[in-house]
């Protein structure tokens, strides 16, 4: 055994150990979910279920709200992502590049959205929404999703914008690009990895949001996590496992597809010049 490891070199061993740790830690719970999703009976201490079954798959798909709610969730998540990009990216750019009064205070205020536990805020928020006529509206749901991500969408892109070299922007100004054009063609693409991260997060966060959606959207906007909550609290974990697989699959597909289109690895390799 030892000679084998010596033969394949230190680097390979390190990689192997890393992979094992990675799989055990991250994939473990996921694999567990997959197995669980197809299990009928699973007694201790058996390594695998003693009985396989598709029962919970049938069950989840029979829930008549499921398909609709998935559609609604994706719709809302898309709108939320686009809207927060539109609103937050300019702010992030301003934080990164412009000087204006109270800048630090503004930037700090975005911390509130996330650092302040929302549990105690829901009643006040609901009162406000009633007054503004946002209760039971799509806009209301979108807004409540957006406040969850305001901070991500400002802070992360701010950090990304700041890492773009001023010199590259200068040469774009030089060829006659207006500040906006410079932003669009130079700064934005170069800050893209960070913005992409923030956007993915926004999208997922919106897909996962239940409390606020319920408060503002029920009974008209029943999103996926709301259905999910009832399934996982009332049914054995197998049903939850099935649901999370259904829920995860389209997003992962999207991710893989986008990786192909968003040129190989914007995320990982970045742009490097000698």
């Amino acid at each position, binding site marked *: 055994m030892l000679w084998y490891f010596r033969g394949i070199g230190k680097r390979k061993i390190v990689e192997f150990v890393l992979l094992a740790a990675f799989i055990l830690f991250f994939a473990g719970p996921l694999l567990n979910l997959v197995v669980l999703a197809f299990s009928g009976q699973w007694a201790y201490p058996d390594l695998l279920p003693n009985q396989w079954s598709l029962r919970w798959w049938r069950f989840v798909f029979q829930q008549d709200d499921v398909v609709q*709610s998935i559609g609604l969730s994706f719709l809302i998540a898309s709108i939320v992502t686009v809207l927060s990009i539109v609103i937050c990216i300019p702010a992030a750019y301003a934080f990164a590049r412009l000087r204006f009064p109270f800048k630090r205070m503004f930037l700090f205020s975005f911390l509130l959205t996330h650092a302040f536990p929302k549990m105690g805020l829901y009643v006040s928020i*609901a009162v406000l929404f009633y007054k503004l006529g946002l209760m039971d509206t799509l806009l209301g749901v979108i807004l409540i999703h957006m406040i969850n991500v305001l901070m991500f969408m400002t802070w992360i892109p701010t950090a990304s914008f700041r890492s773009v070299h001023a010199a590259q922007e200068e040469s774009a100004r030089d060829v006659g690009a207006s500040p906006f054009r410079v932003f669009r063609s130079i700064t934005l693409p170069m800050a893209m990895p960070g913005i992409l991260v923030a956007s993915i997060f926004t999208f997922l966060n919106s897909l996962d949001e239940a409390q606020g959606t319920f408060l503002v959207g029920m009974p008209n906007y029943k999103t996926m996590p709301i259905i999910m909550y009832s399934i996982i609290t009332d049914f054995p974990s197998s049903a939850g496992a099935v649901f999370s697989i259904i829920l995860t699959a389209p997003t992962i597909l999207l991710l893989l597809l986008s990786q192909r289109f968003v040129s190989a690895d914007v995320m990982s390799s970045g742009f490097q010049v000698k």
Partner: protein
Amino acid sequence: GSANTNASSGGSASAPAPASSSASPSKADTVKFDFYFSGSQNVKDLWDTLIPMFEDQNPNVKVNAVYIPSGTDNQTYNKVLAAKKAGKGSGGIDLVEDGIVTVTQGQEDDVWEKLSAGSIANLANVDAQTMTDAGNMAIPYRSSAVILAYNSEKVATPPKTMDELLAWIKANPERFAYNDPSTGGAGSSFVQTVLYKDLPADAIHSSDPAIMEQWKTGFDELKDLGKYVYGEGIYPKKNQGTLDLLNSGEVDMIPAWSDMVLQQLAADQLPASTKMVQMTPGFNGGPTYLMVNKQSEKKDAVYQFLNYVLSPEAQTVIVDKMNGFPGIEVSHLSQEVQDKFKGVIEGFRTFNLGDLGTEINKRWQSDVAAQ
């Protein structure tokens, strides 16, 4: 599964069009009100059965039942409260189903309507004491019992009294578990029963803070018990938490809601060897309440519905479906049902400790959990 035959509760899911009842009464004489309830699948099944029955008999009232998945149920109350604070009336919520905590909270915030037999005739069938305990603001339309569930393969002769149970726990370390009392009624019932084990019988209807003095021996007992329960002091969260342990064979005995055990047995989620036993004196049970939003503009229709819910006909359905106890006194039900409860109902007790329930949880948290 999907016994969703009722159009009014199923169809409103995600249609963006506002289906609010106040806006669109379909016929001049038809009133449609909104009813928010939460709970497990069996609760949903119950209402899916009861509401059509009611609507058949009362064509002028339509009930829009909104099922609130657990996990988000706190928000129903938040919504009612917020609508009131914003001056927006009922906020589209006319009738709410929930536990005692929400009832008490609503009394403080003044959001529930006071109810009387004048508007709901069948209220007379309900135990007057229970109504008073709830400040006449909530109807205990059904009750469930907490029982002792155990693995009959491991436990041949289950304990019959509290003292026997305590002895069993100490004799079989780490084979018993009760859930954190602030996260579920089964655990809370166990804790309260231990605390009131040696107190006068009527103490369970008193919310007089003076009695707190006398909890000491009970809490000492619970503290001591910590060493013998599952994981030497682990109290799972929620009623389901202990059921999971029983299911996986990590413990042999737990206090649990009878309806949950029955339902999960039926669904193969618990091993067939699981059995139930009620002790004497029994664990306290707990009613589930229906509250009318004070801001509601459709109270008459709501009362009509509540009246039906408290009718013997509806209560019989409830008893069948929920494996629970009726909200009205058993004497009003059919003989058949009465027979079914013979021997069980005696052991069934309801505690009405008011705010003391919260005090117990707090003290448990600091004395028992954090010992």
